[in-house]
């Protein structure tokens, strides 16, 4: 969580840390919900439900934070 809050792109808590993903999303100005069929978290506001997350084998990456500027 701290890494994503600090602006680094990778979520360090894996693919099923639901509470942390919701906490990070609540603090994120870039959060935007993905389409319904791609949402997996019960919390509407969750990094796991964000349009700008990209799933990897072990976690998700924030594509917004990857962008320069």
């Amino acid at each position, binding site marked *: 969580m701290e890494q994503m809050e600090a602006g680094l792109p990778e979520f360090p808590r894996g693919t099923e840390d639901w509470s942390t993903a919701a906490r990070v999303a609540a603090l994120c100005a870039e959060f935007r919900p993905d389409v319904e069929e791609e949402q997996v978290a019960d919390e509407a506001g969750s990094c796991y439900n964000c*349009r700008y997350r990209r799933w990897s084998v072990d976690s998700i990456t924030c594509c917004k934070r990857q962008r320069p500027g």
Partner: protein
Amino acid sequence: MRILVSIDDTDDLESRGTGELASLIAADLETNGWGKSSFVTRHQLLVHPDIPYTSHNSAMCFSAEIYADALDEVIAHASSFLARESAAGSDPGLCVAAIDGLAAPDEIIAFGRRAKESVMTKEEAYAAARRLGVHLSEHGGTGQGVIGALAGAGLRLGGNDGRLKGSIPLGPPGGVVSVADLSRREDVDAVRAFDGRPLDGNEMVRVGEKVKTVMLEGKAVLLVTAAAAADGPAWQTCPRQQLKRY
């Protein structure tokens, strides 16, 4: 004739989702009088560093019952639709499979399963499509989406993969409904416990948020899990995160 229409790699981070495009093609099929479309399913494919994908690598598929002489029109329409509506920079692929005359249904199902476990190539997808006699085409970019499109059709045909697009409107969370009433709905073919057990019609289920069905044995199945609360109904609808693996 029964067909499967499957698409993949049509979107980018800002565009409409592939699921919405699948729904639009399904609706167009009916509007044009070519037949009747069924629900759209979402199929998760392998997430791997060697596979290019936007954010989740999933394919979308629907089945339809069409007039036999409409097949070419359906393919032409879906092809031009994808070329026109897919996001710039995406790599859309389209598979249209006529199920009734499919030479080797097991092979397309096996292709779908392999695409969940290993990195596949376009060449493998096209070779399989030729052997099977199914339509497979690319409509922009690298055309990499043909792999997911063929895999999506295989997984849908297998009948034991994926979540249905959309949620089941059961009213506000906290309501209670019987298994019998759930089973009578047009959008629910069966109700089962998460471990697969069928339930008696008189058992009661507490409704949660965003209730979704998954595809099992070719049916839209509503999965329920033991209720968290000691009082009240014995069952509750599965939370979304519990359905993540479908």
